């Protein structure tokens, strides 16, 4: 059989045509597969965010929307103490919760990843399990625990440790912090666990073999490798803490409001949608800046 026994150019174009056809088929499938999720998120996420952005430059006059473009809402946010205080409280709470959560979560994640042996899977499931209970119910339980006539005060009184109940437990920033630590702790343990789990025992053994004490081996090997997981936990904990509504509203008592409560107040009590939109935009700008700053740590982790 010789090589040139047919119209070579004809078959070459046939191949090119077939390749183009199957490339088109692949393209159609790609677009078809992505379309539902992309269309949905565009319509019900991106568009609402755009609407918020536009609203934030409008104002409310006598319960009517005034569509004159103005920066009045933003000026008000940065001059009126109630908004500034809301942002400040949210920031303080989120920062505190992030740090405490990290300190609390690291040993637990380390224990599960390195010391729990065959209990590992069970413990991991147990960390996640509270997530399956609505946050509303769990926050509600903290009211039973922290109140002036709550379980903790009564327990302390019954055992004679205190004479009068602690009144600062419920309806205070303390309560918000406790509730948020409780809510986000599992969220922190998981990425930490994932990165500590990747630290091979042989690496730690090698460090010790090279005369590092266990403590030194931990700081030289385990901790640097767990750091990305710590960052992921911290960033998400902080972001969620900034915008959280349910826990502060249930446990905070309403004397000092976090920013999420301020947004709802603008919307519900003052009917000031543009005001709420503007606060939302400031909050979002803050979160985006934070993500941009920490992206180099969290990107590889999230990509997994």
């Amino acid at each position: 059989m010789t090589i040139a026994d047919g119209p070579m150019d004809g078959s070459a174009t046939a191949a090119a045509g077939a390749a183009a056809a199957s490339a088109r088929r692949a393209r159609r499938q790609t677009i078809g597969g992505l379309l539902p999720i992309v269309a949905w998120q565009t319509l019900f996420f991106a568009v609402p965010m755009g609407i918020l952005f536009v609203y934030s430059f409008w104002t409310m006059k006598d319960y009517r929307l005034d569509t004159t473009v103005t920066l009045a809402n933003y000026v008000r946010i940065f001059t009126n103490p109630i908004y500034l205080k809301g942002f400040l409280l949210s920031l303080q709470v989120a920062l505190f919760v992030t740090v405490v959560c990290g300190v609390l979560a690291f040993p637990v994640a380390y224990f599960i990843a390195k010391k729990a042996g065959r209990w590992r899977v069970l413990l991991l499931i147990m960390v996640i399990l509270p997530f399956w209970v609505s946050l509303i119910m769990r926050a509600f339980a903290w009211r039973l625990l922290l109140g002036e006539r709550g379980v903790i005060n009564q327990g302390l009184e019954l055992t004679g440790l205190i004479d009068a109940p602690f009144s600062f437990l419920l309806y205070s920033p303390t309560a918000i912090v406790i509730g948020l630590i409780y809510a986000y702790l599992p969220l922190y343990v998981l990425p930490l666990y994932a990165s500590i789990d990747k630290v091979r025992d042989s690496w730690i053994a090698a460090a010790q073999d090279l005369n590092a004490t266990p403590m030194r081996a931990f700081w030289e090997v385990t901790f640097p490798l767990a750091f990305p997981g710590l960052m992921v936990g911290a960033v998400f904990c902080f972001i969620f803490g900034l915008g959280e509504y349910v826990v502060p509203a249930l446990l905070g008592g309403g004397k000092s409001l976090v920013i999420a409560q301020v947004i709802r107040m603008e919307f519900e009590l003052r009917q000031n949608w543009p005001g709420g939109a503007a606060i939302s935009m400031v909050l979002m700008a803050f979160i985006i800046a934070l993500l941009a700053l920490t992206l180099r740590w969290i990107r590889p982790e999230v990509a997994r």
Partner: protein
Amino acid sequence: MTAADVPMRRHGRAATRALAFYAGLVFAFLYLPIAVIVLFAFDDKTVPGLPMAGFTTQWFARAFADGELVGGLATSVRLALCSAVLATAIAMPGAMVLAWRDVKVRTVVMCLVLAPIVVPQIVIGLGLILLFRAAPGLIGEPAIIIAHTTLTACYATMILYSRLLGFKRSYIEAAMDLGASDVRVFVEIILPLAAPALVAVLLLAFTDAFGEYIVAWFVAGFTKTLPIVIWGSMRGVLSPAVNAISAVIIAVSLALSVAAQIWIIRQTRAGRA
């Protein structure tokens, strides 16, 4: 092993024990509130508190006689079911394409899909209600389903995507090679092998939608989901009936999630081969 190693080992074991004790405390912290809800559901005082007075099951009876609570429960189950199925259905094709195809605009798509995770729910709620001003007819049940689908579809896509990444391409190619069309490959190979991930995603999306309060509140109109009912009842006098219904839900969701976890682990093990 030299003599000098012995104290070190002993020290190591003590440290491990201290670590275990600490982990125990953290777990106690995690489960304390759940235990409190369940305990007080059986206490016959009308205002929950220590010391516990006596055992009763009357709050369960009252809870299930309370039309508002039961109505909220039914509404929540119905709406959460819809949004869980919807979220999984729109997430699956997208996840398949992202995991298996060369997508040029992958970063853009990923950002769009992932963004709702980092946006505070109160912001999403406010944005959605301003959107629904353009279609007031949807406010109520359809709007709640839409809102919860939007919230859950993002991590549904992410979970499915990461599972499908580990999926051996050769399974699909082998099936096609043996004569299975795209549809048959999906039914015969992809669906059964992705079943654990799909179940996990469905459950997660359901639970999340079931318990979500603030976004639903924005778009609910006159619809009352269970969280909205409970929230309302917490403003007024706290009835232990809320405890009772919460206890039931906790029991059901914990049992369900444990069962699902066990099933998923079994499936994954069988599928590892």
